[in-house]
């Protein structure tokens, strides 16, 4: 009997009127877990019932605890007819199963009905008593922590990063079951919600088991997705990175103690050597991790489809290539060999992380991606289709019996794709893929599976079975210059996988770097960047004929290479136009519709100091004899040049002038800018390699030979930069801005456009799509204008084609304000810093505080210098203009809210229950206690409803995350049969998204948290039928529930001594340099 689940139903409020006669409700509650159901008494005639029930106890297996959601149904008692359901609450009790996470779930949950939306709230308390289970054959994986965050969570450190875990579960979609014809939409929706909840529980448990098998204790970068395949079923799949994490105990660890850098250096978390058979491992002490110390390599991934499918691409190991002339060479080769040995044992050396502990990422090769077009009808096992005769009737049977082998089909598909990715990475001389993600796009029975990532060489220290000699490690450290190491090519320059233009690194001048770099990861924290970054998007539509099955799939696969090529060209041109040389966070989404394909690529462009200055864009006409045409061309050329110059100014890109001699002559190789190695295949029997280089001609030359090309050039120039005061990026942090203030606003915006004409051309389509995206961005800038200066971070666009002529774009992002004055200062110092780096070899001194900071708090968004600056300036009482205004604001807000608080106090005496929430909130957020400073007075702290912040980022600016409470993974369906009455499609979806946010916040608050980080809306499927006055929407969101504490409040406790310690070594504000 491994667990006892206890539930108490306390009260309800704001219930809807269910009895028209009395304008009241006779409510009672059913509490269901697994097959056990309890009921409360009926609380007669009240919209605010006080059930105050006993503790309902469920004695269950921990396997069930992981799989099943707790289901709470609120009903209206009816003596004569059936009881009417008011709504439901599903509570995922998984967070209660980890030892360090939440201990109790308690709070007000919105009561949700799939037809009516939120109908009142219910106060519930849930606890779990878990008994230790020593059964080694157990099926549960309680205790494995899950994180959506794609970096090592802030209050943990990575002992070992084990690697890729994946799993998928397939089931019949209740919406397509025969019973759906006779049951109500509500019943169908609820069956679906419950099923998906069950499936994700099961999936998570299975992934957890794999992690335990690998001797890890956590999954980081956990990404779970649903494929709604219609008739052929429902797939829930997940990928993640298994890790062994250690909780950082010291709460003040994030403050860099810069007085003793060398001593601290030895205590970087990664010095433990997991392998006992290594030679002397220096001063390190293998302390805590005895449990992990012997580690026979395991095959944890499904082997069914792998190993024998080694694709013909020969891996280029660095050994013996004879090319490395510089002293770093041999080490690099050695390192590569070791990494290889460490990684080769893994089937898929993939990492879903996008940000890494310092030193983890050694080199980055470039983006690798693979796509495959599949026909979903093939999924049916021919055996049973044959037996049943038609596809419809089999549903009458117990489908579980033959659905059981379906995951194998999907597994095989994904295994193929992963294998391709792996071989692409090998071709780039890399043994690992980081920033890895998978996605699908489904239209009718055609499905495009996509995977992409960044090929990379990793430091084996972090990988469980890596073996590295201590001394080698040491020397490598010295030879890898900070800020440019990851840019150096991992492949052999004389034996390159594709033609590339290489130069010596502009930073260290020792290693070769490519001229542009595309990656899917976040910008490494230590990367030397010049100026600011910006969001770059490539948008593309291609019409395709409507076709069925096989023909359709073939048509799509034929179009894909052209789309990829054009998307890539667009990205490259836009990057040049911005005067930048690298893309981070690249995400290319290809969406398939009935009659078109859409491609949308988003990335954050930056200027990496290590990479050469990008060349301009040249325009060439095909008919040079025509005078006016010539003139036109030169006019265009001028416009382009002006734009580049303007952008350089806008993004403050002013790289130091370097004379040619220093750099050395470029390797005489045809110019080429592709790092994007891709392939696609219909059934993956053959892999086609697409060379994205522009053949033999100079790629920066745009040839204008027809109107199409003209359009392309025009569209390049139509991208309007954001209004002044605004920046945008799709990565976690904006390069060049690092002094965030605490105001954040997460939002979701959805637009659907109907294409007007029936005979559309590709150009018109492109223009429509481009306008849609641009207008959407413009609207966002306008809406958020009160936050200026601010930056839109993690801008995530999703395109879907719900119907023939409809295009839907969904954007989720967070706007974060920053301090303009300090921004100028730091960018200046940043440039100075990079200048200094480039010119002096005395890097180590600079390097220490940087490393220390990020060590104690991996991938901390602020460089330490800024913190010093802040604490220094606040200590010495130099109030920035900004600070003064913020004081004003809060006092104004205080004034505004003071009387309302007064009234609320009064109101609470007559309103029971509301007091309860206040208490939980205060308990949850240990703020408000030590408000030493005026500016930190939170105007919201006194609200009866606790404020829960949501952000797609892994951090909260100006705050420290003290605790991770568990993963939030929620799936909702909303349907209406009175679309017009609910304000049309916009009113319907607006209300639904607001409700989803509310439910996420309520769950986080009930866990005792005050924020969701790494929040993502993974799916927003919207279908409408205006003629029938109906609409339906499915939304799937996830994130990590956390507790955060404002740094201003932490300072009170911890600043005094650390800053005092800092004084001798870094006095005053000069720390910045």
């Amino acid at each position, binding site marked *: 009997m491994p667990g006892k689940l206890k539930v108490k139903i306390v009260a309800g409020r704001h219930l809807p009127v269910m009895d028209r006669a009395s304008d009241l409700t006779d409510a009672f509650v059913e509490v269901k877990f697994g097959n056990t159901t309890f009921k409360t008494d009926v609380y007669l005639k009240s919209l605010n019932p006080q059930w105050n029930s006993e503790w309902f106890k469920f004695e269950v297996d921990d396997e069930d605890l992981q799989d099943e959601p707790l289901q709470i149904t609120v009903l209206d008692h009816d003596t004569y007819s059936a009881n009417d359901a008011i709504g439901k609450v599903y509570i995922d009790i998984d967070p209660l199963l980890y030892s360090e996470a939440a201990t109790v779930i308690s709070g007000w949950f919105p009561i949700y009905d799939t037809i009516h939306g939120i109908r009142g709230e219910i106060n519930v308390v849930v606890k779990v008593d878990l008994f230790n289970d020593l059964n080694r054959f157990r099926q549960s994986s309680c205790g494995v922590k899950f994180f959506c965050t794609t970096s090592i969570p802030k209050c943990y450190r990575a002992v070992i990063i084990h690697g890729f875990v994946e799993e998928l579960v397939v089931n019949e979609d209740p919406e397509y079951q025969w019973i759906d014809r006779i049951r109500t939409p509500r019943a169908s929706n609820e069956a679906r919600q419950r099923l998906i909840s069950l499936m994700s529980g099961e999936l998570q448990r299975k992934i957890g088991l794999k992690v335990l098998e690998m001797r890890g204790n956590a999954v980081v970068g956990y990404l779970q997705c649903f494929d709604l395949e219609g008739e052929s079923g429902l797939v829930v799949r997940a990928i993640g990175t298994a890790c062994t994490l250690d909780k950082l105990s010291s709460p003040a660890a994030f403050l860099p103690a810069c007085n003793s850098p060398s001593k601290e250096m030895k205590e970087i978390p990664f010095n433990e050597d997991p392998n006992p058979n290594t030679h002397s491992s220096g001063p390190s002490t293998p302390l805590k991790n005895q449990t992990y110390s012997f580690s026979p390599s395991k095959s944890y991934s499904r082997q069914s489809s792998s190993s024998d499918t080694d694709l013909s691409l020969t891996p280029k190991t660095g050994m013996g290539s004879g090319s490395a002339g510089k002293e770093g060479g041999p080490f690099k080769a050695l390192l590569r060999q070791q990494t290889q040995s460490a990684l080769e044992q893994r089937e898929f050396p993939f990492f879903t992380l996008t940000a890494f502990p310092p030193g983890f990422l050694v080199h980055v090769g470039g983006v690798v991606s693979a796509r495959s077009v599949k026909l979903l009808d093939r999924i049916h096992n021919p055996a049973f289709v044959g037996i049943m005769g038609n596809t419809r009737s089999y549903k009458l049977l117990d489908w579980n019996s033959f659905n059981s082998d379906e995951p194998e089909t999907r597994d095989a598909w994904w295994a193929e794709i992963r294998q391709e990715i792996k071989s692409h990475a090998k071709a780039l001389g890399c043994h690992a893929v980081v920033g890895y993600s998978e996605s699908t796009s489904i239209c009718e029975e055609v499905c495009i599976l996509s995977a992409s990532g960044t090929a990379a060489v990793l430091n084996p220290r972090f990988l469980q079975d890596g073996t590295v000699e201590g001394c080698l490690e040491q020397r490598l450290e010295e030879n890898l210059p900070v800020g440019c190491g990851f840019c150096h090519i991992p492949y052999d320059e004389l034996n390159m996988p594709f033609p590339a233009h290489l130069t010596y690194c502009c930073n260290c001048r020792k290693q070769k770097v490519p001229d542009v770099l595309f990656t899917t990861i976040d910008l490494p924290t230590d990367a030397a960047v010049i100026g600011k970054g910006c969001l770059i998007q490539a948008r593309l539509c291609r019409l395709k004929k409507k076709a069925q099955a096989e023909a359709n799939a073939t048509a799509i696969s034929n179009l894909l290479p052209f789309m990829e090529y054009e998307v890539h060209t667009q990205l490259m041109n836009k990057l040049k136009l911005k005067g930048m040389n690298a893309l981070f966070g690249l995400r290319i989404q290809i969406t398939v519709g009935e009659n078109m394909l859409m491609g949308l690529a988003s990335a954050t462009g930056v200027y990496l100091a290590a990479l050469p200055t990008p060349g301009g864009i040249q325009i060439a006409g095909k008919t040079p004899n025509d005078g006016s045409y010539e003139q036109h061309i030169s006019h265009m050329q001028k416009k382009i040049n002006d734009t580049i110059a303007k952008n350089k100014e806008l993004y403050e890109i002013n790289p130091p002038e370097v004379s040619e001699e220093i750099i050395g002559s470029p390797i005489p190789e045809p110019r080429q800018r592709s790092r994007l190695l891709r392939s696609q295949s219909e059934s993956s029997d053959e892999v086609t390699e697409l060379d994205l280089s522009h053949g033999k001609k100079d790629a920066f030359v745009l040839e204008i030979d027809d109107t199409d090309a003209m359009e392309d050039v025009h569209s390049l120039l139509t991208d309007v930069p954001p209004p002044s005061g605004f920046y945008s990026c799709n990565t976690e942090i904006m390069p060049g801005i690092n002094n965030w203030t605490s105001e954040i606003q997460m939002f979701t915006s959805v637009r659907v456009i109907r294409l007007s004409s029936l005979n559309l051309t590709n150009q018109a389509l492109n223009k429509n799509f481009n306008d849609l995206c641009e207008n959407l961005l413009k609207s966002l800038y306008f809406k958020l204008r009160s936050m200026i200066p601010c930056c839109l971070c993690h801008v995530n666009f999703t395109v879907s084609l719900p119907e023939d002529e409809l295009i839907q774009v969904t954007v989720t992002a967070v706007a974060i304000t920053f301090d303009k004055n300090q921004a100028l200062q730091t960018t200046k110092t940043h440039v100075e810093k990079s200048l200094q780096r480039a010119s002096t070899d005395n890097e180590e001194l600079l390097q220490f505080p940087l490393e220390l900071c990020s060590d104690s708090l991996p991938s901390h968004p602020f460089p330490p210098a800024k913190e010093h600056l802040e604490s220094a300036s606040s200590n010495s009482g130099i109030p920035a203009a900004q600070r003064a205004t913020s004081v004003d604001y809060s006092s104004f807000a205080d004034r505004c809210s003071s009387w309302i608080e007064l009234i609320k106090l009064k*109101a609470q005496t007559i309103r029971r229950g509301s007091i309860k929430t206040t208490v939980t909130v205060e308990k949850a957020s240990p703020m408000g206690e030590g408000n030493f400073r005026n500016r930190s007075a939170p105007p919201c702290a006194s609200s009866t409803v606790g404020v829960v912040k949501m952000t797609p980022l892994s951090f909260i600016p100006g705050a420290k995350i003290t605790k991770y409470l568990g993963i939030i993974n929620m799936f909702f369906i909303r349907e209406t049969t009175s679309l017009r009455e609910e304000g049309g499609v916009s009113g319907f979806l607006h209300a639904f998204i607001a409700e989803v*946010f509310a439910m996420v916040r309520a769950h986080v608050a009930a866990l005792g948290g005050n924020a969701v980080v790494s929040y993502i809306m993974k799916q927003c499927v919207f279908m409408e039928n205006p003629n029938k006055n109906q609409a339906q929407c499915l939304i799937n969101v996830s994130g990590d529930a956390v507790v955060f504490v404002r740094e201003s409040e932490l300072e009170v406790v911890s600043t005094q001594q650390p800053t005092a310690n800092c004084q001798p070594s870094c006095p005053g504000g000069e720390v910045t340099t």
Partner: protein
Amino acid sequence: MTSELDIFVGNTTLIDEDVYRLWLDGYSVSDAVSLRVRSGILEQTGATAAVLQSDTMDHYRTFHMLERLLHAPPKLLHQLIFQIPPSRQALLIERYYAFDEAFVREVLGKKLSKGTKKDLDDISTKTGITLKSCRRQFDNFKRVFKVVEEMRGSLVDNIQQHFLLSDRLARDYAAIVFFASNRFETGKKKLQYLSFGDFAFCAELMIQNWTLGAVDSQVDDMDVDLDKEFLQDLKELKMLVADKDLLDLHKSLVCTALRGKLGVFSEMEANFKNLSRGLVNVAAKLTHNKDVRDLFVDLVEKFVEPCRSDHWPLNDVRLFLNQYSASVHSLDGFRHQALWDRYMGTLRGCLLRLYHD
């Protein structure tokens, strides 16, 4: 290319104060957009009209969804759907319940029933306030009235508790409720010069001194209904003008005290009996509901207008009223001193407020 769906949902609900005002003022989306264009916002922000249209629609939708909650402001505080900082919640509530001076003057003292709602069309035409805004304001009055009408305890406190209004606005609403339930006539031409503030001031004094709540704080409707017993008793004051000796004595006391202090002494002396008769008769008539309704008309007719026609300065009015009230204490034959004070104390305050051009 037409936009089928266009929404923006923030984790913290965005409230644009300017758009909120336009919405409250009852403008349609297209009117609001053109008004915003005229405000020069496009030039300031570099936005396009389409962006403005989408933004306005979005805000209107949000306000529409919030309206349901604004009808019961405590719900706005406890609901979970919209995350709004308290200062913003206060602003939303306060603005929603704010009303136009022109509108309130039209409705003040009228029965808040459906019949009056039909007149809203006329009020809208007359005042230039959109019908939508008139509706909102009227519904607010009615809603507050319905909730606090039969409630025990202080009217202002009740309103504050149930509608979370600021002190100032709660007091205004108390006046509106008080006027509506006693149906004081405020619409006569004679009374047009009076502002809502004047009436609200009087209402507050009357609530404090003339209602049931003034004597007993444990009764229902204590602040809404006038103290019937007190009104009955007021008949007793009639002897002040009916008894000739008392009247003469009263006059001589006032004249002696004010001689040389009043710029309009002679006018006062000549008019004393008329004024005194007027004030006392108003009191005596208050037993009838009809006459209660005409209280302000009577006060203006019987006191304000005569004084104004003689060009009494405000200060002289004050001196006179003070002396007029105080002198009664020296009238030995008059036994209802407490009653007189309860009546005259309030009336003096009201008259001074009502006395202006």
